[in-house]
């Protein structure tokens, strides 16, 4: 029974004809507009429409709630008419204290830039040291954990006493508020450098500086940026509060000033400015993070 079966095998294994008819239907090519523009517009609309609809709803509810006579807070339409100049032109200059909110935000941003910049540099340096050394970690971590819970405003009198000037005090408050998350996250990132990378560095005999730039910073970058992102949010929170107390030019002082002269509409506009600027700051740091840490995600 086996023999005939074996004999038929070569026939089965005979090569199939190499050329087979290939059928192909070229797809109908849609126009450029239909293929490229339309889907993109759709995607943009899908992202933009829901928040816009919600915004309109919130404004409508707000309008209804604040329309009745005797309302304590201004309605959106009232704000629009009262604070029209502040809304439409952020960069007008009508006098030494009568300037657009854009200028005030820029002044505040300047303070944030200095304080946050210092916090970034010092925070990453301290975090690196603490992440490297078990003893520095044991000694400093409890102290940092206590210090970081102190409200930015609580630091202000101390810094005013130390610096005797409002400008450095405000910057110090920014610094002291945003430095803790940067230190702590950097330290965690440094501690979590995989042993593999340390081994590679050891075999290559990288010196301390090379190890710092080529292994430590890239490896800890996702953690460092988490700290930086929390830090920028905190410093923007702190600057408004600090400026309210220290005075001068700035978005925080503007709110305090408006409150003292009962310009509630101006306050609401300033709040919107603060929110939008804070959002943009957060996005900028997040954007830098995605560029810098691209490729550092685990393989």
């Amino acid at each position, binding site marked *: 029974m086996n023999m005939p079966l074996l004999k038929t095998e070569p026939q089965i294994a005979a090569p199939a004809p190499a050329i087979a008819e290939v059928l192909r239907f070229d797809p109908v090519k849609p126009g450029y507009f239909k293929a490229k523009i339309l889907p993109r517009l759709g995607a943009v609309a899908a992202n933009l429409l829901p928040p816009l609809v919600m915004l309109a709803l919130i404004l409508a509810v707000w309008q209804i709630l604040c329309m009745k006579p005797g309302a304590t807070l201004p309605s959106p339409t009232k704000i629009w008419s009262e604070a029209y100049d502040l809304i439409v032109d952020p960069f007008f200059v009508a006098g030494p204290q009568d300037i657009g909110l854009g200028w005030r935000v820029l002044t505040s941003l300047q303070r944030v830039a200095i304080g946050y910049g210092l916090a970034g540099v010092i925070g990453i340096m301290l975090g690196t040291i603490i992440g490297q050394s078990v003893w520095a970690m044991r000694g400093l971590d409890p102290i940092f954990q206590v210090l970081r819970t102190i409200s930015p405003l609580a630091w202000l009198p101390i810094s005013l006493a130390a610096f005797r000037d409002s400008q450095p005090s405000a910057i110090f408050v920014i610094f002291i508020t945003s430095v803790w998350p940067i230190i702590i996250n950097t330290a965690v990132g440094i501690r979590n450098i995989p042993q593999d990378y340390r081994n590679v560095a050891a*075999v290559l005999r990288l010196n301390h500086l090379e190890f710092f730039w080529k292994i430590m910073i890239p490896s800890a970058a996702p953690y460092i940026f988490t700290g930086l992102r929390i830090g920028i949010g905190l410093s923007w929170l702190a600057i408004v509060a600090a400026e309210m107390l220290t005075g001068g030019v700035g978005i925080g002082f503007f709110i305090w000033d408006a409150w003292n002269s009962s310009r509630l509409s101006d306050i609401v506009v300033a709040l919107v400015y603060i929110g939008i600027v804070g959002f943009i700051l957060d996005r900028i740091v997040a954007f830098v993070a995605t560029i810098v840490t691209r490729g550092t995600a685990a393989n």
Partner: protein
Amino acid sequence: MTAYLKIDHVDKIFNRGSATTEVLKDITLTVNKGEYVSIIGHSGCGKSTLLNIVAGLTPATQGGILLEDREVNEPGPDRAVVFQNHSLLPWLTVYDNVRLAVDKVFSGLKSREERHAWTMHNLDLVQMGHARDKRPSEISGGMKQRVGIARALAMEPKVLLLDEPFGALDALTRAHLQDSVMALQQKLGNTVLMITHDVDEAVLLSDRIVMMTNGPSARIGEVLDVTLPRPRKRLEMAANPVYLKCRQRVLEFLYERHRFVEAA
């Protein structure tokens, strides 16, 4: 012939709190220049610890490592390691991973152009020149390991240390990479010390197989010379009596005389 690499009476004791574990006991092994030596044993027998001691990543408790009659006790590019999990830096491209090693080892010896050429030469050796601009996350496990090998070779090490280099790969990729390593060693004449737990891999690749007993206090149980001529062809080996005998011998050692005992 004096030994090129000598592992001289190495003991390793780990202290954790009050508990001490003797991992390695009196390991003495010599490797000649151009020789391919495999160390095989069950997991947990301390073979990776031994490789780390040779690499200088872990200090020996007793004894030491001699390379060309000079003691080495810290890591260095003369003993390049190919790590089991490739250990490429994920933020660098394939090229930059190798280039980092080349720049470090040949910083004062080669010009910029020469270092570039040497980097590309080593990538081409492992057939990874085409992926030079990719990041490790964008290439397969086998390719990553190739780049790891290129990085190690680029250091022009005196001894190439392979720590279960094919362990994390699927069977087909593994066979392919083993053939590549064999061809490379044939071509370059590297001295290789490889850790493995794969019997076929050990017999196919090695000139000598060092079998380790189970830990704690693991020692060298037996050393087997593999006298098969090179180049060796995987398919021909399957029926080669010497190959089968060697294989049988290692299997007997691992599964009869020193059966793996699950730690309690």
